[in-house]
């Protein structure tokens, strides 16, 4: 079974600065998808960014970018120019691209605090 590990329970960043969240995963599959979700206090999970494992190019979405290292099974999220609205829980998630691709496996989450 796949596992996703987020080793940082909490990260603090100054407004306008950059913060990087770590995620590692364990899988024997070669084709899969990785995601970062944001969960504000309202509890609704919001997709931040998505990466297909077969793509070597790292995904970017405005101020959010990832560093995908397939061999190391690492998938970190960089938030640039942090804003107060970025404060939330962030979850890394894995999804198989095969027949079992009907569920997401989440990590334990990292709380991001943004200091004004």
């Amino acid at each position, binding site marked *: 079974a796949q596992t*996703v590990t*987020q080793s940082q329970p909490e990260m603090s960043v100054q407004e306008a600065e950059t913060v990087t969240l770590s995620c590692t995963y364990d899988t024997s599959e070669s084709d899969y998808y990785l995601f970062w979700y944001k969960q504000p206090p*309202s*509890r*609704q*999970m*919001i*997709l931040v960014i*998505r990466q297909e494992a077969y793509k070597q190019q790292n995904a970017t979405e405005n101020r959010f970018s990832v560093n995908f290292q397939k061999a190391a099974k690492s998938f970190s999220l960089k938030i640039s120019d942090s804003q107060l609205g970025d404060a939330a829980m962030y*979850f890394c*998630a894995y*999804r198989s691209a095969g027949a079992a*691709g*009907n*569920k*997401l*496996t*989440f*990590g*334990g*989450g990292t709380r991001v605090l943004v200091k004004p």
Partner: protein
Amino acid sequence: GAGVSQSPRYKVAKRGQDVALRCDPISGHVSLFWYQQALGQGPEFLTYFQNEAQLDKSGLPSDRFFAERPEGSVSTLKIQRTQQEDSAVYLCASSLSTGANVLTFGAGSRLTVL
């Protein structure tokens, strides 16, 4: 609707009571998922529907948990004889296509069992 709607937002139950949690997915979305999120943890998969068919229920923790989606739209997660360890946020998500592609999540139902 515009998003995934879940009700109730909050539910307090006495141990041993039965509860029912409702999920209204986005209209036309084929796939529907239920996740359980314990306090301070990431969501864990419970079950998956494709239209009205429950294709995967491997995450349901016990036979006290039951989910249905009889007409392929609204889904209900039922928990019988609730226990304190059932206290969690129950998240529903839907997707236009099959599988966990681009999911839209609801705001969840927080269940507290006393």
